[in-house]
């Protein structure tokens, strides 16, 4: 177990809508995640997994509660500061890949580096290296439409890790893929966790995928129901 708490959630709630239509998707989440951990979040549909991930990824803001990221109180950050936090510390992999269409793999992977203001030469080199790391050398100039789902997800992973983020957030990264391809993707993700020390937070429905994680958190109805380390008894 690592020493430093990377992420600390306390009493996080999230309410969608207001008045009659208000719906509380998170009903008070307390969670501490350490640097270098690999966390799988499971739970039934509608239990608030994605909602929690979006808050963790600073893509959305909590209704109440406190979220500390590397000691910084996220709820006190401005919109721009949260964007910079995403830019410098976070990487995302989505179920639906979310690549820019009609844009080559290389340009997709380069995109976060452009926003970081990296010079073109370094950008190209880093993007190529990242594509190589996910096993896509030779595919640099293909657009998403010319790639299989598994390949698209690899491009997305390359885009997420090209900036060497502290945390990789993946919401059902294998949700659209067959089991063989899913295994390959999981191998990549756990490899980055192991070798680069990137902390991974991943939502999944499949126990086979959760088995790659070091820690499994179960959400039920907007609350954490169980939280155990893999290898411990359930």
């Amino acid at each position, binding site marked *: 177990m690592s020493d430093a708490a990377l992420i600390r959630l306390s009493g996080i709630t999230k309410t969608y809508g207001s008045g009659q239509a208000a719906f509380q998707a998170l009903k008070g989440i307390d969670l501490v995640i350490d640097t270098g951990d690999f966390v799988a979040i499971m739970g039934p549909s509608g239990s608030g997994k994605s909602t929690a991930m979006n808050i963790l990824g600073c*893509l959305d803001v909590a209704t109440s509660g406190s979220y500390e990221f590397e000691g910084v109180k996220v709820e006190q950050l401005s919109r721009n500061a949260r964007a910079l936090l995403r830019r410098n510390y976070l990487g*995302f992999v989505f179920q639906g890949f979310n690549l*820019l269409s009609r844009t080559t793999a290389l340009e997709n992977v380069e995109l*976060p580096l452009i*926003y970081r203001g990296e010079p073109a030469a370094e950008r190209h080199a880093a993007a190529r290296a990242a594509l190589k790391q996910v096993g896509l050398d030779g595919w640099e100039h293909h657009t998403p439409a010319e790639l299989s789902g598994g390949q698209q997800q690899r491009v997305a992973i390359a*885009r997420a890790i090209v900036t060497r983020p502290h945390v990789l957030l993946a919401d059902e990264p294998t949700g659209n893929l067959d089991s063989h391809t899913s295994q390959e993707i999981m191998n990549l993700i756990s490899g980055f966790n192991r070798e680069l020390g990137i902390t991974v937070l991943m939502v999944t429905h499949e126990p086979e995928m959760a088995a790659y994680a070091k820690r499994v958190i179960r959400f039920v109805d907007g609350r954490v129901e169980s939280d155990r380390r893999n290898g411990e008894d359930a």
Partner: protein
Amino acid sequence: MLWNTLQLALRSIRRNLMRSFLTILGIVIGVAAVITMVTLGNGATKSVSDQIASMGSNLLMVLPGQRFGPGAVPGAPFKSADVEAVRNQITGVRLVAPVVNKSATAVYQANNWTTAITGSSNDYFEAGNWEIAAGRGFSEAEERSGKAVCVIGDTVRDKLFGRQNPVGSQIRIKQFSCEVIGLLKAKGQSSMGSDQDDVVVMPLRTVQRRLSGNQDIGRLSISVKEGASIDAAKDQLTLLLRERRKIGENEDDDFRVMDTRQIAETLTSTTRILTMLLGAVAAVSLLVGGIGIMNIMLVSVTERTREIGIRLAIGALEREVLLQFLIEAVVLSSLGGLIGIVIATTASIFLAGLMNVPYLFDPGINLLSFFFSAAIGVIFGFFPARRAAGLNPIDALRHE
């Protein structure tokens, strides 16, 4: 940041060529239409005023009657005595040409052609800046006796004689035959579309006797001496004619004295209204182009919103995204504007040649159309993006 964003914007344009092309197309058509219409209209106006200026700035025209259309005051035609009076009593008058017009058919061998027969004197040629290309004008004896001789315009020559030299031939007009003694140098089409060379000029007396059958004179063309005051001549002329026509103290004139400037104003104001109308029609097409852009932007807004979500998620700042979209919109619409200007210039030069009007570059309308197109691009391209960039990244990503 600016350089990076510019690159992103250009990439995005390149990647979405079809969308970019359609966006531009509306602006290109609108801008080209507006500029072409206005430029041609300006050319037509210029050509009218040029033509009138070529008549000489020192020309006065006297017509019987006041105003056209409703409220018109009819006036008796002029008589030869009026011509003499004007010639002798108005200071600064160089020449006075009495004019009578009649339409008639001229026949030569198997060819016939209906044209305007003008009865006047040699002064008519001089006042109207006509040159005799072949043959001669009228002799004094011919004018006095009303001999059946004529000087024909180039169009009439063409219709009756083809390329042949008409001088010395006899043409028949109504029941009399008439010797062609001269050919006028071609002037070309007038800017109002009428053919100035479609004329047959005869001595006044010939027309009065053989065609109109009375002593009436339809109008007077008066050329004022170089350096003499046109306004003074007009005033004197008005006084003289009022006296001769016995118009009472409180009565209105029953004739009109116009100088070339006034004629020019009347005519150019007509073409100017036409220009404005054409410009307005073309402006509608620019507006339609703008609506087309809005359409394309709205259709692509789903895709664009998700794109914005992706950019925000990987750490783009709202202002970076906005700047990119702004640059995209401005580049596309300025490009459209520029292409429109190029097309308009080409089309205007070509059409001006075809319509026989001068090509006049009008910087005002070019600038106006250009900035209008840029504004359209910004409004329709940028504002949907502004809404999307203000969303939470996750809402933009989830946008359906």
